[in-house]
């Protein structure tokens, strides 16, 4: 009893302090987390000479689009952006089409070899790109696909397709089977059931898979580095990487470029938080 009465005040104290402690920890972590993002935009949205100031100024004296203008008008940015859009949109459309079909097949039907195939797709998802660049470079060279957009699209597709399939397989499994069986009784073919029942119900899963395929392709560095060395087909990542080639790093240009490349993903995240979180956790929760 004596012990209890001594414990109660401290417990009360910790209960009063705990939320404050939690908010302090979260605030410090949030500042560290956001700072590079803030600094990237703060550095690129200031008048050119202010980037070189020391001591550095946290905020620009006035907002200026000077660096954004410079990379858009006087650099390869626009050309790289077009390449990135062509490549990433093609990869996304193909990956989603292929993975809807594959996810439907794996999650809905029982046949011999199904588990083996599901497992192979999972292995493909875990397969490290860096271990493949050498033979892939040789295969693409034999097929005359080095320095072509098609070569890069095929390479990236091999890494977007497994992840998208994995997500969609997990999502399709949550849709009750009775629904497509009912469609089958009504005379719909398996393909009809996919188009009329599964796809409309799997909206959020398909959105997650689409966004992740796009991001995987948009962010790709290593395949582009090896397979897209020609200036005309370089995507944004390689165009940005090339900016560090000279003796002097033009930090304002580099930060403007980095910021413009990060922005679409950040906007996707703000708009589609639920799908993002689903996409990130589906794998680990399922396992």
């Amino acid at each position, binding site marked *: 009893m004596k012990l209890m009465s001594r414990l109660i005040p401290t417990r009360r104290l910790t209960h009063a302090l705990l939320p404050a402690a939690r908010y302090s920890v979260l605030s410090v972590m949030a500042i560290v987390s956001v700072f*590079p993002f803030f600094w990237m935009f703060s550095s690129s949205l200031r008048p050119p000479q202010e980037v070189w100031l020391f001591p550095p100024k946290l905020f620009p004296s006035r907002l200026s689009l000077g660096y954004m203008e410079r990379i858009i008008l006087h650099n390869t940015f626009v050309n790289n952006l077009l390449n990135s859009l062509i490549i990433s949109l093609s990869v996304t459309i193909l990956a989603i089409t292929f993975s809807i079909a594959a996810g439907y097949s794996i999650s809905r039907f029982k046949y011999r070899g199904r588990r083996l195939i599901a497992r192979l*797709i999972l292995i493909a998802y875990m397969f490290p790109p860096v*271990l493949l660049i*050498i033979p892939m470079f040789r*295969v693409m*060279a034999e097929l005359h696909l080095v320095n072509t957009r098609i070569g890069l699209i095929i390479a990236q597709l091999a890494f977007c397709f497994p992840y998208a399939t994995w997500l969609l397989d997990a999502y399709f499994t949550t849709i009750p089977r009775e629904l497509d069986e009912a469609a089958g009784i009504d005379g719909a073919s398996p393909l009809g059931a996919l188009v009329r029942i599964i796809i409309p119900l799997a909206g959020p899963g398909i959105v997650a898979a689409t966004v992740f395929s796009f991001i995987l392709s948009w962010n790709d560095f290593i395949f582009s580095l090896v397979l897209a060395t020609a200036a005309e087909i370089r995507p944004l990542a390689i165009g940005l990487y090339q900016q560090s080639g000279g003796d002097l790093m033009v930090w304002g240009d580099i*930060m403007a470029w980095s910021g413009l490349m990060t922005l679409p993903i950040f906007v996707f995240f703000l708009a589609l938080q639920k799908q993002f979180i689903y996409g990130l956790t589906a794998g680990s929760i399922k396992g």
Partner: protein
Amino acid sequence: MNRRAFYIGLLAPGLIILVLVIGYPTILTFYYSATNLHIYHPPGVFIGLRNYLEIFGSESELYPALLSNIVWTAASVVFQLFFGMIAALCLSGIRRGVSLFRILLFVPWTFPAVSLAFSWKWMLEPAIGIVNYFLIRLGIIAGPIGWFGDMSRAMPSVIAMNIWFGVPYMIISIIAGLDSIPADVYDSAKIDGANDWQTFWQITIPMLARILLVVVSLRVLWVFNNFSFVFMTTGGGPNNRTNILPVLIYQVGFREGWLGRASALAVVSLAILTVFAAFLLRRTDEAHE
């Protein structure tokens, strides 16, 4: 119509790509590793195990690279998990502002690798970088430090960058794990008189264990093979201090041109990863049953 053919047909387009881009090249890696293939002189000559004898020889760059790779992977994943756990527990313990903090804490994950590497290089710039400025102002360091170019600080710097990038993924996964623990388990612990500390170690951690194992192994796989972060910030330098295996493979294969020898390094790396992959596959199999 043959139903089985239809089901497999649905899989065909994706599988063809996987065979062409992953399956066939994997087999080629094993073959190349037994040749002296050079990037400018294909197809190369069969030389048996000579590449392997060299990379396992005492002069080999493999051992320092492996050691760097282990330090890089272990430190990154342990601290990602540590900070991820702290943030997730704090987030699950507050009522107001959860969604705001979730957005703020998620920001690092939205960076493409190239933007990430450059924004850190800029912050850690030796002469006019903002980090050196802050640290000097606070009296923590006396003069400017060349983080990514400094022999003893290059590895801690790339690891710090990688921790920063990986925490959001941990937070999200741990929160998902916490949400899957039924509330009545906590209620009955409370009735039994368990304090917060006991509840954490005896309920939260054991119930999170399964998901943490999967998340950590996925992370290990990914970090172990991460090429771009190190390649773009230190390039493996200074003096090979950060020359992890993936960067070494690229250097040997595409800078020096020895694709055969680089393939042998890739095979070694693949053997190490098979252990993690096998473990992960077993967990997912258990979940399916």
